[in-house]
């Protein structure tokens, strides 16, 4: 890994099935800069998450974003499992 690799710190909130599978409501992680998709794949492996990326949506700083979004320092991230309100 080169010295050039930039790291960022992000906060992630987990809800519903993701909260149960990770065992936490939120966490702050320092990781290599990348996209939302990179982050979810990382977490998927780490926590053996059952939901595929195609089943969920993601929001950064309270806005739904595409999986290709580059994460910035201090980003607040929510992964949204399939919803079932009402």
């Amino acid at each position, binding site marked *: 890994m080169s010295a050039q690799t930039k790291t960022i710190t992000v906060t992630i909130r987990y809800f519903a099935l993701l909260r149960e599978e990770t065992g936490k409501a939120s966490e702050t992680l320092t990781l290599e800069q990348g996209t939302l998709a990179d982050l979810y794949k990382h977490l998927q492996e780490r926590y053996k998450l059952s939901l595929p990326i195609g089943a969920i949506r993601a929001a950064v700083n309270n806005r739904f974003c595409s999986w290709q979004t580059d994460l910035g320092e201090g980003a607040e991230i929510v992964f949204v499992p*399939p919803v079932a309100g009402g």
Partner: protein
Amino acid sequence: MAENNCTLKTTPGYFAVSEHIIDVAALRAALGSEADGAVVTFEGIVRNHNEGKPVRSLFYEACSELAQGEAEAIFQEAEARFGLTRIVCVHRVGALNVGDTAVFVGVSTAHRGESFDGCRFIIDAIKHRLPIWKKEEYLDGSSNWVNCQCREDSP
């Protein structure tokens, strides 16, 4: 209700996520103006069954901040399409029992057609778009996060 109204300046709507029993009468009182001829309300109630399985209780969880923004977007769309004068919506979170109201949607308009269509549009959008999750607990002791078993859902 006052504390959240300030977040909805651009719409005629009020939205909240609440841990408390939904006071339907109080929400109804916020609907209607002198120009309105129709008020339509919808309540989603915890049923004692879902897809054939007897339900004992439900647990709802929400991401309130995201839900608020999404509700505002839904209300603006509903206002534009159906000319709704007032919109009030509260979604319950936490542990609910059979018979409890999980969600209330109330709208008012000049004419009844728009009230029915607008109310229906809003509850459909809420069910599909708001970051709110439902865990059903069945009489047999098992439980399930609704919609989270279809593993290959497309977005």
